[in-house]
Every structure is written in structure tokens, then in C-alpha cells.
């Protein structure tokens, strides 16, 4: 029974991946809309873009990690 609950928990943790996807999409979309308004300033901000994406994605990876722990460690 406990193992089955862990599987349900792992599935619930996978929702976090979707949330991270929304976050990354937000960052990239806003970057693009800004970049299209002022293309000359866009090239200097790609580093900021990647930092933003990395921060948003890290939280999704955390939820993936929780899912992995539930699947294999609990």
C-alpha cells in the first residue's frame, strides 16, 4: 500500500514539471516580445534570458527529483 501511495505522490510531483514549463514559457515569451520591440538591445540580454530560464527550470527539476525519490528511494 505504501508503495502505491508513493507512486501516486510521484505522479502528483510531475505536475511541477508542467508548472516549470509555464514559467520557462513566460520567460522566453516575454524576452521575445521585448526583443521584437527593440531588436538592437536583444543580443546583450541573452545571458539574462538563460539565467531566467535556468532559475525557472530548476524548480521543475526539483519536482522531478521529488518524483524520483518517491519512485526509487522510498
Amino acid at each position, binding site marked *: 500500500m505504501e508503495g502505491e501511495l508513493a507512486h501516486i505522490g510521484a505522479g502528483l510531483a510531475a505536475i511541477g514539471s508542467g508548472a516549470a514549463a509555464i514559467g520557462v514559457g513566460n520567460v522566453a515569451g516575454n524576452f521575445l516580445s521585448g526583443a521584437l520591440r527593440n531588436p538592437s538591445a536583444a543580443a546583450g540580454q541573452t545571458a539574462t534570458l538563460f*539565467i531566467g*530560464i*535556468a532559475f525557472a*527550470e530548476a524548480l521543475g*527539476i*526539483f519536482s*522531478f*527529483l521529488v518524483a*524520483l525519490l518517491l519512485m*526509487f528511494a522510498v
Partner: protein
Amino acid sequence: MATEAHGGEEGGLVFHPMDQFIVQPLFGDGAINMFTVTNATLWLALTVLAVIALMVLGTGKRAIVPSRTQSIGELAYGFVYKMVEDVTGKDGVKYFPYIMTLFMFIVFANFLALIPMSFSTTSHFAVTVVLALAVFLTVTVLGFIKNGASFLGLFWVSSAPLALRPVLAIIEIISYFVRPVSHSIRLAGNIMAGHAVIKVFAGFAAIAVISPVSILAITAMYGLEVLVAFIQAYVFTILTCVYLKDALHPHH
């Protein structure tokens, strides 16, 4: 072997998607001790050798008209140098060798892990936590050496209203100490997730009806992983630069 252990499960994969990350002794089947040569040892050594081959042997001749290998080496050098200079400013360039080493090691470890049947070293927290902790300790010690006690000004947001500053200080301190955690988990998690997904799709290839879809999916995921391998090395390096900038110029 773990393959047999998981193979008997009902309706599941023939092999387990996480089996590729098992650290095994390279010779024989003995227990793993401190100095056992494992597949992780082999691929870490290959990573270092590949970096040496590119950066020392490839660019050693210092030709005016560069060969292809030397061009790649110069491209990598210029890429990282520009990144360090852009993010940390002129006084951060002194620490360029460390950041270049980090970038080359991670990018080569990530790309070597993409060779079929290889072992992905950067998917192990043991590897990435050491890298991230080294960055964290370096940056913290450097911050105190360079700025003395005023390094603590990093946590005291002087642009915020006075009443908010203690609250912000607590948040800043927590976020400062979470840095090595997220720094290492981001790299290991991304690489592990990508490789596990490829293996999951590979497991579906055994079912005849969906095997073409599965092979297409593996190809697409592999393409994405090539991108991720580079981007994660880039992100790890640029975050190191950002942390270094915080240590050199702690005031907001």
C-alpha cells in the same frame, strides 16, 4: 545485474530507465571502495583527456593560420572570456582560468555522456555537488577577502525601505545558502532527466506497433539533449560568473 531484477515486472520495460546511472567496477564484480576503478572513473578521466586533447594538444602549435582543432579551442576560449568579461567586469577576468576550466569540464562531460553506451558523469550529484560547493566556497571566501566585513552588505538591501530590510536580509541569506543546492541539482537533474527520458522511449521500441514513433521520439529527444548539454554547461558557468560578481561587488 539490475536488468534481470527489473525485467520480470509485469507490463513494464525490459530494462529499467535508471539502470544507466549505476556505478559499476570496471574490472571484476567486487565491492566499490574508495579507490576502485569504476565506469565513473573511466568517463571522468576521458573527459579530462578530451579537454587536454583540445586545449593543450590542439592549440599547442599556436599557428597564425589555425587548424580546425585550434579554431575550436580559440572559439571556446573567446566565448568564455567574453562571458566572464560581460558579467563580472574587468576585475573578474583574473578568475577566468577557473571559470574556463569549469566550462570545458562540464561541456565535455555532458557531450561524452551523449555517446551511446557511455556513462553520464554529470548526472551524478557526487560530481555536480563537488563542483557547486567548490564554486560556493571560492566565492564566499573571495568575497570576505576582497571586501572584509562589508561583504555582508550583500544581505542588507540598502535600496529597500528600512522596515523591510531585516525581512529581506533573512530571505537573502536563505537564498544565498540555497545557491549550491540549486546550482548542483540543476545540472545533475537536467542531464539525468534527459537520459532517463531517452531510455523510457527506447523501452517502448520493443512494442512493434509504436516502435517507429518511439525511434522518432528518441531522435528528437537526442537532438534536444545535445542542446541541453551545451545550455546547462553555459548556465552553470554564467551562474558562477554571477556569483563571482556578487562577491567582487557585494553592494546592490
